[in-house]
């Protein structure tokens, strides 16, 4: 139920909506809970909302998400 998937912000649009890349698929989500998010950042998506910005530095440092994140770097 509390599942979240990581997505990369591709475009920030009007009315608190952003287009994200999730595992190669593009979808629009609400960024009203993370209004400070910037282009290129990764967010954790839950129920159509970015619920938190992923700290990429920590993610890489701790390696856990590296595999997932690297897929988006190309």
């Amino acid at each position, binding site marked *: 139920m509390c599942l979240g998937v990581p997505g990369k912000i591709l475009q920030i649009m009007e009315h608190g909506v952003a287009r994200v890349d999730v595992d190669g698929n593009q979808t629009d989500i609400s960024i009203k*809970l993370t209004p400070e998010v910037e282009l290129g950042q990764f967010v*954790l998506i839950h*129920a159509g909302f970015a*619920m*938190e910005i992923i700290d990429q530095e920590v993610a890489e440092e701790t390696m856990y998400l590296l595999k997932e994140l690297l897929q988006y770097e190309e």
Partner: protein
Amino acid sequence: MKNDHKSYMQQLLQEIQAETMEASLMEVCGTHTMAIARSGIRSLVPPNLKLLSGPGCPVCVTAQGDIDGVIELVREPGITLLTFGDMMRVPGTESSLQEERSKGADIRVVYSPLDALTAAKSMPDREVVFLGIGFETTAPAVAITVEEAMENGIHNFSLFSLHKLVPPALEIIFSDPNINVDGLICPGHVAAVTGVEPYRLLAEKYGKPCVITGFEAMDILEGVVMLLRQLHQDKATVEIQYRRVVKKEGNLVAQATLKRVFQATEARWRGLSSIPGTGLKLRPAYEEMDARKKFGVREIEDVPIKGCACGEVLTGKITPHDCALFGKGCTPLRPIGPCMVSQEGACAAYYRYTPLRD
């Protein structure tokens, strides 16, 4: 990098397997339940370490009477109900949403609460009710949806809130002398919203370590190791393992949104009865969107399901294997209790991944 990853995981596992202390650690998130079962972690920990499932699956803790109330509502003409897929098969006293849909009720599954708003706009002649379920992770998204409905004057949208709060329910677990839990594997995504404060208070008040943990197998192993180290050092504090997502202060925008739209109320938890201050209802400013009030939904008493031990499972008093119905009368195909319905329920996870030992 991959080798580093693997060797770190082995190191964590070795530390866990060398542990001789008796300890019961409870995970309080259905996603953890599923991750622990699927990754086989339960079979890798030594028998002196118990990994228990807590009341962390919002579907599983939904009271039967609450489902009955929703079912009464969808039987009314002109109502369209939208909800998350997990809710469809949860048994009420005599029926489920899935059964009602097969009898003709207009019930639809959505991925986001915002989909309910789109539906309401496209069907102005119907009353669109969103059945809101979930903890602090999901409730802010629903709160934003309610605000958007209000701002855009979508008067045929309403919310049936079954939202619940995690930390006050955990307090029940810690304060019950019959529940033996030494440390908590705390839900990473709930904490992403709430921050560490509620868990710090719990850890200090009850002297039990809490570690906010992520959802990969390695996160869980690291979370377990962090709990064991605290227990060895006689510490009871809150630590964040899931640092890539959880900030100490949580998501302040989400917290403020929750406060604007919702207020705490008494909620019924399956297995824990009614607990004041553990549910969320709309604030008076949004009352016109409260489906219970708008349609006069009555409170329906819970009728205990004969033989179902979901209540004991949800509080870690027994494991799913100890329930007389497990795998006999109650299976994922024909679930009797909600812990077998939701994919993230402890019973469903055990059924799929943890075979019965002789």
